């Protein structure tokens, strides 16, 4: 039975993780995701599950690596500078084919930046971040309820593909309260058994979890296996939303908080007689290149709007491949754009 509650984005992600059967959560405090950590601190021990406040971001991600290797659903969360510190661990998790969920509530950067909402970590999240040829699935919610749904999905995808999955949101989504219908909890014991996990070599050969081999030919084969997995994910896991794109002349490409603001702009523009639509990638990796290209064939302009200097913009231009104009409008440093600002950008390209 569904329960409806008014909750913050950070709390919803934490609660969704618990309901997804997350048994181990490790994290280090950082604004603006502290409520997530606090919700876990309060609720995980009550359920007989593990909450450890780690000594550092490196500690937290490597605890996740260990818990994931032991076969349980494991998660960590942080915000931009903390996620930078986790990159080596994420690369190991990807290389060792382990499932894990990582939440990034982005804040303004680079460096210490500020604690206001931003989208400057798109490159880091979607193009690797750590060393080596790897990807992780990146899910970008644009509302609080969707943050909960995508968190549940993140654990399923992580297990299905034995890969790290990131929830990429921002401080705005983390702090905002919305009514949420919480799904029924999953009993961790009901999840499929992980035959590869470190559970003790009883009546079987030892399970060994590695991300390395010193023989280049063997490591090449391991890399090719990863690439095959990424190909499968690209084929099967693309998620996106099109909003009023059917008759549009101009389409905004945006994700997360900005996409939510852009929906309002679509309604405002249409009241002014401008046929505006929205294309919202939900998976930032894999990026829905082909779908966006189809949209580009029907419209004059695809305006990318981000709270960054234009990071997703690169993927938009790759997708559009000069089939439409691809201008950009962005805010940085934690400045959140407004419907009126986006509308005045749209008007530059209308008619």
């Amino acid at each position, binding site marked *: 039975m569904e329960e409806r509650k008014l909750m913050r984005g950070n709390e919803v992600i934490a609660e969704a993780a618990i309901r997804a059967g997350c*048994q*181990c959560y*490790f994290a280090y405090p950082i604004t603006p995701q502290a409520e997530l950590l606090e919700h876990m601190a309060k609720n995980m021990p009550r359920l007989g599950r*593990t909450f*450890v406040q*780690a*000594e*550092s971001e*490196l*500690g*937290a991600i*490597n*605890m*996740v*690596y*260990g*818990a*994931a*290797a*032991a*076969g*349980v659903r*494991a998660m960590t969360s942080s915000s931009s500078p903390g996620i930078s510190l986790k990159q*080596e*661990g994420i690369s*190991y998790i990807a290389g*060792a084919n382990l499932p894990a969920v990582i939440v990034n509530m982005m804040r303004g950067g680079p460096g210490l930046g500020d604690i206001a909402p931003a989208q400057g970590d798109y490159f880091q999240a979607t193009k690797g971040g750590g060393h080596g040829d790897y990807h992780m699935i990146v899910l970008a919610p644009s509302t609080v309820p969707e943050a909960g749904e995508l968190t549940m999905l993140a654990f399923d995808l992580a297990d299905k593909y034995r890969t790290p999955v990131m929830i990429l949101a921002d401080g705005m989504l983390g702090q905002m309260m919305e009514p949420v219908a919480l799904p029924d909890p999953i009993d961790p014991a009901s999840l499929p058994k992980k035959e590869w996990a*470190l*559970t*003790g*070599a*009883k*009546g079987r050969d*030892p*399970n*060994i*979890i*590695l*991300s*390395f081999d010193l023989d280049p030919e063997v490591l090449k084969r391991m890399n090719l296996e990863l690439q095959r997995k990424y190909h499968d994910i690209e084929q099967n896991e693309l998620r996106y939303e099109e909003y009023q794109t059917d008759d549009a002349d101009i389409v905004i490409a945006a994700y997360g908080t900005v996409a939510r603001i852009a929906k309002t702009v679509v309604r405002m523009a249409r009241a002014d007689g401008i046929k505006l639509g929205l294309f919202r990638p939900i998976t930032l990796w894999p990026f829905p290149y082909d779908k966006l290209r189809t949209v580009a064939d029907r419209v004059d302009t695809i305006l990318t709007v981000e709270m960054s200097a234009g990071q997703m913009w690169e993927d938009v231009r790759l997708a559009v491949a000069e089939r439409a104009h691809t201008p950009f409008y962005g805010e940085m440093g934690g400045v959140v754009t407004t419907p009126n600002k986006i509308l005045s950008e749209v008007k530059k390209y209308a008619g």
Partner: protein
Amino acid sequence: MPVNTENMIKVFGRPKSMTDVRSTYCPGCHHGILTRIIAQTIDELGIADRTVTIAPVGCAVFAYLWYKCDAVQASHGRASAVATGIKRANPKLIVLSYQGDGDFASIGTAESIHAANRGENITVIFVNNQVYGMTGGEMAPTTLIGQRTTTTPAGRDPGYFGYPIRFSELIATLDAPVYVTRQALYDTRRIMDAEKAIKKAFTYQVEGKGYSLVEVLSTCPTNWHMSPVDANRHVTEVVTKAFPLGDMVDRG
């Protein structure tokens, strides 16, 4: 002349939990002795089917090869954090974090201290050979004063590079660890002492008592540029002066 084996009794052999994979360690290095002691302990306690070993970065990166146990390889310095994750996920497992001095006492300083301070119910074997072996003999946090390495070609000057760190002594100041000891393997008596210490450390974990740390002094004939015999003598006569042997904490 053919040997009649009919009436022979096997008095010594490879521990059951040890594989017959060829060692990657150099001749005269003590890692091999230590590997055998650990396998023997796993046999004696009957825990092979619930032990997980963590291989570090460094000379012991292949540590997952030597035991018939589940294993995982950790990033440089993070083995104690990985051990924490495994043990917290499944407390029934017996977790061995096997780490060198660069791994445990330099790049992994934070993870090492905090796993100990939380009293994680794990066993850490910390191999101290005063040098980075795998990368070619650079200065370690434990490198002795005056010791020549590839990054201290004129010898370690403490005014410039700092002093050899006695990491186990640091850990011993914490309230949580149940057992902290330093052992060596340079002669039979020391090997027997080390066997007892390692068995005690694992036994405490099996009994759920908490964190144990066994530091083991090792030779590195290759990077010390010594024969195995001279390296052994160096541990006996020089290294044990900077790193005295014995128990620092035993709250079991």
